[in-house]
């Protein structure tokens, strides 16, 4: 029994780690730059699908899809991340110059349109079946049980790197500039800052983090199907960020762990089949209550944005 708990925990922490990378990307977009991206899941999906398609072997004649490039898995992950960034550029060109309200609407619409593209373009995505039974990185070296712990290790390494990169970006003059754009774009313009480019860079970097997280998530779940990328997933990042603390990378991390804890704790509760359904709906209740409590008493999130001080 004890071993099962450890295995469960390894899985849950791996998931939280993937969410952390995902949420760090939203933090640079919304927390720092103030871009209310309500279609954030789209970049997660692009990363997941691109990485899988790039590293899948060439398909045989008996399947619906016709692509697959057989690249190594790491190349797929980089490709997934780059593809997400590229799509952010495409979406950003028309939307970042117009008002914020439009940006919110367009990103939300984009994520839904993309999901229908994933469902319908069978030649590329294999439709609602998606791709399943995916290999996992270095899977051939470990037995099933030991692998879960190794995968957790890989995720944690990725999380540490992602956090360090993000910290470096956010603590730099660029981080200050992003905050300036968030606080007051007009002042930044009057100071000679090209705010459109600042927003574009933050948007692309955030999307690349989402894409990378997506490519990890595909390996975690060992499958990609369009149903995984419903708008709910956008709000996973939003909830984690609002609870943990926007504009604070540590807050994003904390928020993700709280989210996964609240999301998975019901699995710890022993219950009869009749109660299982009720327990599942309890999750949404807990999450909503948590959000209300945090926003009522800690409106900036549990970890507030850090004040930058100088001597």
């Amino acid at each position, binding site marked *: 029994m004890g071993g099962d708990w450890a295995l469960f925990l390894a899985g849950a922490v791996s998931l939280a780690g993937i969410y952390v990378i995902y949420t760090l990307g939203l933090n640079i977009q919304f927390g720092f730059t103030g871009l209310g991206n309500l279609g954030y899941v789209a970049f997660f999906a692009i990363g997941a699908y691109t990485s899988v398609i790039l590293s899948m072997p060439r398909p045989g004649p008996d399947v619906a899809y016709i692509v697959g490039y057989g690249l190594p898995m790491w190349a797929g992950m980089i490709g997934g991340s780059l593809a997400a960034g590229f799509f952010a550029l495409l979406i950003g060109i028309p939307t970042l110059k117009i008002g914020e309200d439009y940006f919110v609407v367009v990103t939300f619409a984009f994520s839904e349109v993309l999901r229908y593209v994933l469902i319908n373009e069978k030649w590329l995505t294999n439709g609602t079946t998606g791709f399943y039974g995916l290999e996992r990185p270095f899977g051939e070296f470990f037995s099933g049980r030991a692998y879960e712990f190794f995968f957790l290790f890989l995720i944690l390494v990725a999380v540490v790197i992602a956090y360090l*990169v993000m910290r*470096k*970006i956010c603590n*730099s*003059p*660029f*981080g*200050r*500039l992003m*905050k*300036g754009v*968030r*606080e*007051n774009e*007009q*002042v*930044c*313009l*009057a*100071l*000679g*800052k*090209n*705010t459109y480019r*600042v927003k574009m*860079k933050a948007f692309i*970097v955030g999307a690349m983090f989402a894409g990378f997280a997506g490519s990890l998530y595909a390996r975690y779940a060992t499958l990609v199907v369009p149903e995984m990328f419903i708008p709910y997933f956008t709000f996973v990042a939003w909830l984690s960020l609002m609870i943990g603390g926007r504009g604070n990378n540590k807050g994003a991390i904390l928020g993700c762990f709280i989210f996964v804890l609240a999301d998975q704790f019901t699995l710890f509760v022993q219950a009869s089949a009749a109660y299982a359904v009720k327990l599942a709906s309890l999750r949404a209740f807990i999450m909503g209550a948590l959000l209300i409590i945090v926003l009522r008493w800690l409106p900036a999130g549990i970890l507030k*944005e850090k*004040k*930058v*001080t*100088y001597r």
Partner: protein
Amino acid sequence: MLVVKDIHKSFGGVKALRGVSLKVERGSIVGLIGPNGSGKTTLFNVISGFCPKDSGQVHFKGERIDHLPSYEIAMRGLSRTFQISRAPRGMTVLENMLLAYKGQIGEGVFGALFRGGRISKQEKVNLKKALSILELLGLRNSRNEYAGDLSGGQQRLLSLSRILASGPELILLDEPTAGINLTLVTELLRLIKHFQVEESKTFLIVEHNMRVISEICDMVCVLVSGKDMACGEPEKIQKDERVLKAYLGAVQGDSKEDLE
């Protein structure tokens, strides 16, 4: 230094500017006055690129700038403040200042990631400069406060210091003394004069306070219903019959003493 030629601008049916022309000489302080709704702020918005003109030209240092986006104009050395001081509230006073400096290496993603050494060198230099400006404007002790926590007057001082940090040659001030107590007004005027004399900055100031105008301005231009009515030395303008009529006639309850 700044030449504005025949600027027209309407918002729907409202003709805000109807052929304004204006000249600002290098190293001078020019006041822009006019009744409410005469188009002063609109003119500022057009000059600084925050609002596209309908027709006319703006030249700055001999270069035509009226087609440029606002940040490009600011990069060329023409900066402005806003009527309502809009401080980035969630940033400290020093962050506000450091934000202003031009040509920062760390303002791109790659610079931020890979040029740590050069960034920290540049930050040190900028920090020193910022502190000396804050010292001058009496904000040094509030350097680690959030800009949003400052008083209204301090926020105005901060917006002036921020603009100064960005190193402009021509500064457009939109009602710098509105809502500021008299002692601070005197201080502010001293500072503007100081920067004109010591650092050869040029100022164009929208102002309602006649004391300010007569005390520091070398030239005054009067804007009435979107047209420039008169330009000249403050003493002359104060005696100009047309100006008195337009200005006082439009603002009810204002007395002539205000002008003198």
